[in-house]
């Protein structure tokens, strides 16, 4: 849908007969059709005129500094010329002047983007807009380079997918706004909607999740699509380098959830990331075993809900089933205790005090061993000196 302008281009030009020469005076008006043998010829003529009636209207050479008004004389939404096109095409060809003058590109001319158009009437071919003439598709987000050319969207585009997201799918076309503007399609406030245009099923899952609910309530700190998936270099979860791959999920979630201030603010609990990283799952994952549970294995991803929600995968009632995905036969006992919570006297009294006892035993045993070893070595040293002393005295006596 998004790329229709370019897709339609070849067909559009094919319909244009080279021999056609119709003056502006001969513009067909509705109800002007006669009857008889001549009407057949007239109909053909009208059909062709509907398409390209203004063919020779403006024989003006276009320059890059050409004023936009020149283009808008045909492509304005109010222009009657466009009425002759089917509705869907008309929408594509019509440019909302108001929108354009408010966009980030308000100072640019049409031909800055629609290059290769040197005259009116123009061929439709060659009008493919190339944003990379001015903008790099590689961006830096939080100090990390993100290349669109490496992304799954570009990979799909290369394969010939017509749905693959290109620049305009997310940023818009004539209505591109600076990212800082809250009504921009790529502003955090709009991101889920923008991605949801294509990924509508995921959007409806996200909308019901804790992140989506918070986003709907305009909580700026809530995760939107790009926080986890990245921006230009979005990769499939199966790709190791992806921010949502099994290897990188904990790192991605920790961008927000390792922040204790946020954890306290939203009642998530402390040390959620470090306690996971210290659990067998976290340790095994760090060593490269991706079969173990990462954050998403238990919490889900687009549909994450807090444990207090009975329908959450990690609610007390659902834990046995969730753990059972990997540990078949897991029973209700798994819900009797805490999962990745640092033991405190209140949360895990036994684990806390046993850990403390061991720490004290180990901490006092090492100095005790060291003391005994030092005493033993001192005893040996003292005795050997005594022996030497005795030997020397004996030698003295002899002499």
């Amino acid at each position, binding site marked *: 849908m998004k790329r229709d302008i370019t897709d339609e281009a070849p067909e559009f030009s094919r319909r244009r007969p080279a021999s056609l020469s119709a003056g502006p005076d001969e513009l067909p008006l509705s109800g002007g059709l006669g009857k008889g043998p001549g009407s057949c010829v007239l109909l053909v003529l009208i059909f062709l005129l509907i398409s390209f009636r203004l063919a020779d209207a403006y024989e003006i050479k276009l320059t890059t500094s050409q004023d936009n008004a020149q283009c808008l004389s045909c492509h304005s939404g109010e222009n009657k010329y466009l009425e002759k096109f089917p509705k869907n095409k008309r929408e594509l060809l019509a440019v909302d002047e108001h929108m354009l003058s408010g966009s980030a590109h308000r100072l640019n001319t049409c031909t800055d983007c629609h290059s290769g158009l040197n005259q009116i009437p123009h061929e439709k071919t060659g009008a493919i807009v190339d944003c990379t003439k001015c903008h790099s598709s590689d961006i830096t987000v939080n100090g990390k380079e993100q290349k669109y050319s490496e992304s799954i969207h570009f990979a799909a585009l290369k394969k010939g997918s017509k749905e693959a997201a290109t620049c305009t799918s997310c940023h818009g076309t004539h209505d591109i706004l600076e990212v800082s503007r809250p009504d921009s399609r790529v502003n955090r406030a709009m991101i889920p909607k923008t991605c949801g245009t294509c990924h509508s099923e995921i959007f409806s899952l996200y909308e019901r999740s804790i992140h989506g609910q918070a986003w709907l309530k305009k909580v700026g700190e809530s995760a939107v699509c790009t926080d986890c998936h990245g921006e230009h270099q979005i990769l499939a979860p199966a790709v190791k380098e992806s921010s949502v791959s099994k290897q990188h999920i904990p790192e991605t979630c920790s961008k927000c959830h390792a922040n204790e201030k946020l954890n306290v603010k939203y009642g998530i609990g402390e040390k959620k990331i470090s306690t996971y990283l210290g659990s067998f799952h976290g340790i095994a994952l760090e*060593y490269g075993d991706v079969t173990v549970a990462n954050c998403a294995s238990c919490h889900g991803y687009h549909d994450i809900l807090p444990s207090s929600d009975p329908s959450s995968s990690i609610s007390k009632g659902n834990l046995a089933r969730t753990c059972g995905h990997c540990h078949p036969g897991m029973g209700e006992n798994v819900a009797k205790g805490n999962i990745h919570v640092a033991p405190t006297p209140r949360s895990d009294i036994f684990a806390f005090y046993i850990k403390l006892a061991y720490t004290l035993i180990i901490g006092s045993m090492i100095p005790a061993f060291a003391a005994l070893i030092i005493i033993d070595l*001192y005893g040996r040293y003292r005795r050997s000196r005594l022996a030497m002393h005795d030997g020397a005295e004996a030698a003295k006596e002899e002499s």
Partner: protein
Amino acid sequence: MMKNLPKTFERLTLSERIQHIVLVISFMLLVITGAPLFVYKWKLFHVLIASEALFRLRGILHRAGAVMLIVLVVYHLGYILFTRRGRHELWEFLPRFRDLGDFLHLVKYNLGLVKDPPNFGRYNIIHKFEYWAVTWGSCMMILTGFILWFEVQAMIWLPKWIMDVTRVIHGYEATLAFLTIIIWHFYNVHFNPDVFPMSKLWLTGRLTEEEMKKYHPREYEELMKEEESKSE
């Protein structure tokens, strides 16, 4: 009478030496393959265990070491209960009040507060501490290890919070055992100036008459008395 005296005294039988060697191998295997889970932030382990396959191998070797230790413990239990020698050794290893007195005597002797060395028997407090530490440690490690190995089956009976306790014990008990061996046992059998670089007792199983007199005077005395009574 003097001619009949053996030049060396057997301290460890072949069976006991083999048991010790099996313990050494399984202990080392268990420590090396277990430590990466306890000291998981240490970069060296991540260099050594650089792939999923190696991490899996670590788990397999850890369980192999565990099976070795279990077999050893079961065998040793049979040995101390059902053999004459084993029962005698167990009797010798039982803690007595005298051990504490001997120990204080040793400290005083080293500090120069008393002139005569302590009159140690076959096993002094150092040996007894090590033996019972290994026994206690092995039981704890095997029990908690089994629970962690068969976590789903264990959780039919045990709630999650006991699993957390189990994991704490397994890790910290192992650390305790490792440090005891590397500091205390290694000082006594390797770095002690008398035996440096290594006491060969664990291989030969025998002590010379000099060593018997020096380290186990009371046992030596008792043996001599036995010898005398036999020859009479």
